[in-house]
């Protein structure tokens, strides 16, 4: 394990992790967001996740940040600094805030002692009279003092912090001067703190950088893919995706409608797409469960549609605010009958953009539903990322021209895709049907029609050339071991593997973006020469491992590392497992 420790005198760190915690209304989220933006302005990469108590509003909250010289997509094993405005119920976040002997706890002595669970780590404790310092400034607030102190401990320049504060408070000029004064007071107070965690100089700026959440990235990817109609029903943790899309769609000539439930939202989206407008809805596990019947309709009636499933801990209501990769089974196998469709997975905050865009393109080209698996971690994490690379434009929906003689909506074609008549097109009226049908679209209970239509619906997916986007393949191509993973596990696996590589453990890393239809040929080719395969995922029942074993003949010794959600894998956890794996 890599322990959190302050670098020695004159030394710097390439990655520093801090937590700002406190009770509701203390403003730790505001201060955390400002610290994230300050790091971005200073030229660093950064990642922020948030955790809050079960209360709807108020209640304890923690902003967890990692600021680094390299792109970061997961948290470190331990935090360097735990800073609290107050300690009310902050011990509830114990499991999410691992500390080490080298960590620092900063707290206001007037707010009592830090909880024992944190102190146990043996870390350094420093008293910081946040409230008193805040009172030294007219209208000053403790969270702004803390922001100043943390920025100083990390060596973030004053102007970057000021820019972040100004951006947030730009609409409230009265609050700006007191906030900047409080930040300055906090910065001055840092001089008395014996431990520091200065960051190494920021990397050179190459690609322009963006600051966004995975949910926002997915929403923007949907628009880039052509989505202009969204039907929405709120559900944690997908709501922000829909809330981002509502005004954004209005700006690009699209529409969002709020539905009465998920049964309505998916059917509204299918209705919109039947009308020729690329359509989408977003949800989480409970909503996806309600949508599977309609997804089968979209398969049978060959109507493109995209569902973004921002996975949370299940089953049932589960833990709505925490992440898990437990929906792979329902996404791949949830539909009744033989219902081939697309399942894709985004593997980083930034990749939520490209993967959702690709999902829209594929759904449109193949006239079938696509489920995009994101998760609470990716969706709600806010990150500084390199501007995502553009993906190639899609081929669009194959439509039928007016007056085509003898038009057959479900014509059995070589590649399985049949031209779709869009309502309003003269002479091509047909009925889109979930009933099995003949080529014309008329209902049929004939086995021959069923075989022909089943076959064409599968063929269009299996004969498509998905290109290089099917997975991100990295690591040591000469290694005789390979790790296969997906989604938000990718970042801790990548980092754990990099650490293991320093110990001499080499492996290829395959992060699957296309899960269904499983690109078995490409996967097997990427595993050529491999003697050991390790499948890593975040669920109890090893859903990906079982799926891969069922779909293809993986080479060599195949093992699984899986555990349920709520807590993300840490790079150290992966590192330790890889050490055992390489010896086995």
């Amino acid at each position: 394990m890599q322990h959190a420790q302050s670098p020695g005198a004159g030394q710097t760190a390439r990655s520093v992790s801090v937590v700002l915690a406190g009770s509701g209304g203390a403003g730790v989220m505001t201060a955390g967001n400002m610290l994230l933006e300050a790091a971005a302005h200073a030229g660093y990469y950064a990642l922020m996740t948030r955790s809050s108590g079960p209360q709807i509003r108020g209640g304890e909250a923690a902003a967890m940040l990692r600021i680094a010289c390299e792109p970061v997509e997961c948290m470190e094993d331990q935090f360097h600094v735990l800073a609290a405005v107050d300690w009310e119920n902050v011990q509830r976040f114990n499991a999410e805030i691992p500390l080490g002997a080298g960590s620092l706890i900063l707290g206001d002595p007037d707010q009592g002692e830090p909880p024992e669970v944190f102190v146990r780590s043996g870390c350094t404790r420093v008293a910081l009279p946040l409230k008193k310092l805040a009172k030294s400034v007219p209208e000053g607030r403790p969270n702004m003092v803390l922001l100043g102190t943390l920025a100083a401990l990390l060596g973030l320049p004053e102007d970057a912090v000021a820019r972040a504060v100004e951006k947030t408070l730009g609409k409230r000029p009265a609050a700006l001067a007191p906030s900047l004064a409080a930040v300055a007071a906090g910065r001055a107070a840092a001089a008395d703190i014996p431990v520091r965690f200065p960051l190494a100089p920021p990397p050179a700026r190459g690609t322009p950088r963006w600051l966004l959440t995975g949910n926002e990235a997915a929403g923007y990817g949907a628009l880039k893919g052509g989505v202009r109609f969204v039907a929405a029903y709120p559900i944690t943790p997908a709501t922000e995706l829909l809330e981002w899309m509502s005004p954004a769609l209005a700006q690009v000539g699209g529409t969002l409608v709020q539905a009465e439930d998920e049964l309505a939202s998916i059917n509204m989206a299918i209705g919109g797409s039947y009308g020729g407008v690329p359509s989408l809805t977003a949800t989480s596990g409970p909503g996806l469960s309600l949508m599977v019947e309609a997804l089968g309709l979209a398969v049978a009636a060959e109507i493109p549609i995209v569902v973004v499933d921002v996975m949370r801990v299940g089953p049932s209501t589960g833990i709505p605010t925490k992440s898990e990769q437990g929906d792979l089974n329902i996404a791949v196998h949830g539909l009744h009958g033989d219902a081939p469709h697309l399942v894709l997975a985004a593997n980083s905050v930034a990749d939520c953009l490209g993967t959702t865009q690709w999902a829209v393109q594929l759904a449109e080209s193949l006239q079938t539903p696509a489920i995009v698996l994101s998760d609470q971690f990716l969706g709600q994490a806010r990150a500084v990322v390199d501007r995502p690379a553009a993906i190639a434009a899609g081929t669009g929906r194959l439509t039928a021209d007016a007056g085509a003689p003898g038009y057959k909506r479900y014509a059995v074609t070589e590649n399985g895709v049949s031209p779709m008549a869009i309502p309003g097109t003269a002479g091509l009226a047909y009925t889109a049907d979930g009933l099995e049908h003949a080529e014309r679209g008329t209902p049929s209970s004939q086995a021959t029609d069923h075989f022909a239509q089943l076959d064409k619906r599968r063929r269009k997916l299996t004969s498509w050339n998905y290109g290089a986007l099917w997975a991100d393949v990295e690591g040591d191509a000469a290694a005789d071991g390979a790790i296969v993973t997906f989604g938000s596990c990718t970042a801790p696996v990548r980092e754990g593997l990099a650490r293991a590589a320093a110990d001499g453990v080499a492996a290829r890393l395959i992060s699957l973006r296309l899960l269904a239809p499983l690109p078995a040929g490409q996967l097997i080719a990427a595993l050529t020469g491999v003697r050991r395969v390790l499948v890593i995922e975040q669920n109890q029942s090893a859903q990906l491992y079982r799926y891969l074993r069922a779909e293809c003949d993986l080479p060599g010794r195949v093992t699984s590392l899986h555990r349920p959600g709520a807590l993300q894998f840490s790079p150290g956890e992966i590192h330790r497992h890889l050490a055992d794996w390489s010896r086995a």
Partner: protein
Amino acid sequence: MSEIVPSSVAPAMRGPNDYKSDVKPVWCPGCGDFGVVNALAKAMAKMALEPQDVAVVSGIGCSSRIPAYMASYGFHGVHGRALAAGTGLKIARPDLTVIVTGGDGDGYSIGGNHFVHACRRNVDMTYIVMDNRVYGMTKGQPSPTTEPDWDSKLSPEGTGLREFQPLVIALTSGANFIARGFTGDPNGLADLIERAVRHPGFSFVEVLSPCVTFRPEQKEWKKRVLPDAFKPTADLTRAARRMLRDTGFDLGVLYAGERPPYAPRGPRARRAPSDLEARFAL
């Protein structure tokens, strides 16, 4: 985004038969639903609608087979969700005339929630429910509008439940046009459908459509209906009071309201998606 090809066919004088497809209905001889196909075709011909600019949307059940029997575009979806599909279609494609169709089980039982919210939302479309007070496709089970003492295999000696009141629900939920018709009067029904389609907002037409197979006693409905019993009003209170003395067989337009139809709200523009990137740039 796919190109929407506008109709280039000049309006022609079409008769009702030009609005029917060549697909043979699966319905039993004497089914009331034939009358709805005829009335719908008549209304479309009267309004001189272009068949390609009309979409008939349905869920599951005997009456939900109707889209395939029309010459317009059709959508035959899953059970109970016709209103949701029709809503999405109309909001995404406001240029189309959207007519949602179905039965009492589809609309009032499995789809009951969507019925209430479609009335509230007031999207400019028409909903025609062919009410025969029975599940016909599954061969005779009680629906929400079935009489409480109607005996069946699934619910011997009746459900004991009070009947669902579609017109009252529609009125209290905000439907902008509410009428009741009867398949035994195709001309009167065609007229109601035409008025419903022309009326802005969500129009609801409850159609008494006998099931001669599982409810043969409904053949007597022709003796019980009261044509033009409702007088149209835009006054909600008057319409509500009128429903207190509804026999269930009163026909005509109960309510024609003036609420503006659903429209997207807030500022709107037609910018390129890439214009939104500035939101993320540092």
